[in-house]
């Protein structure tokens, strides 16, 4: 399969890349890992006139904490997340998600930021970032803004990113001194998209949940933030009744469709089971 012909730019500075987008934005696509964009171009679902390859820009591959929050640069690959000691020690939801995304070879190129910008409702990173309250840093030639992941996703494969903008970084707030996180994913085989995915992040204060983040993958037109379930957990102790209630509310928030990966009822039930499982795990971990 051949993509449609395009003009290729490989700028070596972010300023040059932004200038190219200022000129060609509407007809251009930014290429980072390419593991979603290139397949779309091969199928001709996407046929941009211009490709702005940002891989030759130095200094976009940082993965570091600054003033307590985590910054993930636009060229951080999913395999970098999988191997990072910082992620393993402080960000368990991300550490759980990384090895479940696509397959090992795709993870070597695919980026976290790229996955967010692709806004596939079956994308795993967006659920993790929704649960953790992350923001995307978007730069254009004229300025910079921050967008909450919930405001970024505008529908399937659609974001509020402007044509002249490059998403340069994900910014993840401090998970707190006592936190719990995980990502559970049902997939038919390695490399398949999620049948269902559930991201859970809890900030804990002793026995109580201070703040809860729950987000769902592949059960709606976009990744879904299960707000009612989160609210039911805020301030509560993780006993069986609370866990059941939150799991039911999360299942209600899901809006799955019947397809080759399972019926809508089945997927909704998986959401309930995964949320129960994650919260029970959190309760056990806390008791230990």
């Amino acid at each position: 399969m051949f993509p449609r012909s395009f003009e290729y730019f490989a700028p070596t500075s972010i300023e040059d890349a932004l200038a190219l987008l200022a000129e060609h934005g509407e007809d251009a696509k930014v290429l980072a890992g390419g593991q979603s964009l290139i397949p779309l171009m091969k199928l001709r679902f996407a046929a941009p006139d211009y490709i702005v390859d940002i891989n030759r820009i130095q200094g976009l591959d940082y993965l570091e904490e600054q003033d307590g929050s985590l910054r993930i640069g636009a060229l951080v690959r999913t395999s970098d997340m999988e191997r990072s000691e910082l992620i393993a020690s402080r960000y368990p939801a991300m550490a759980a998600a990384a090895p479940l995304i696509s397959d090992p070879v795709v993870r070597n190129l695919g980026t976290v930021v790229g996955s967010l910008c692709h806004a596939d409702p079956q994308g795993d990173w967006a659920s993790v970032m929704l649960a953790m309250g992350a923001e995307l840093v978007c730069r254009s030639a004229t300025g910079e803004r921050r967008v909450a992941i919930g405001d970024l996703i505008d529908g399937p494969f659609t974001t509020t990113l402007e044509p002249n903008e490059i998403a340069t970084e994900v910014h993840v707030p401090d998970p707190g001194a006592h936190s719990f996180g995980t990502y559970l994913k049902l997939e038919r085989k390695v490399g398949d998209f999620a049948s269902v995915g559930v991201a859970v992040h809890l900030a804990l204060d002793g026995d109580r949940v201070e703040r809860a983040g729950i987000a769902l993958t592949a059960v709606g037109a976009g990744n879904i933030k299960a707000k009612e379930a989160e609210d039911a957990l805020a301030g509560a102790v993780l006993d069986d009744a609370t866990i059941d209630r939150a799991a039911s509310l999360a299942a209600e928030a899901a809006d799955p469709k019947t397809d080759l990966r399972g019926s809508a009822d089945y997927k909704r039930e998986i959401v309930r089971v995964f949320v129960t499982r994650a919260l029970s795990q959190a309760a056990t971990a806390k008791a230990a």
Partner: protein
Amino acid sequence: MANETTISITVNGRERSSEVEPRMLLVHWLREGLGLTGTHIGCDTTSCGACTVLLDGTPVKSCTMFAVQADGRALTTVEGLQQNGKLHAIQEGFKEEHGLQCGFCTPGMMLLGAALLEDNPNPSEKDVRWAISGNLCRCTGYQNIVKAVQYAGQKIESERSGAQA
């Protein structure tokens, strides 16, 4: 053709330059541009891993990368595993452990195995299965592929300790 650009890529230790259209996929450049047909096209949809090559030592799917993206970088294909007429340990492993049946997935499997052994010379069965989990063998000969990679790891280790003795 309009819109061509010159790229220069070190392939199996040798610098190769040519004019390409930006939309030329890396796998097509290797197979049709250089005649290196050891890299196979399986699914053409980023699913099977038959087209896996090493980009500066890291396994990537060459059907999901443009040749222009590899400009200035170093690639290893299955043709580059053998050195000075001597099989790479991973090739020997596939031979000794019957790691291939039809052979279609073999180039990708061998390159993944070689990359894994660079990081982890003594992988467990689980480590190997994890590393090759994105690559499909439609003969379903996974058992012997895993054994072949482990054989190669042991061979590399014994050669190293032999060299030290």
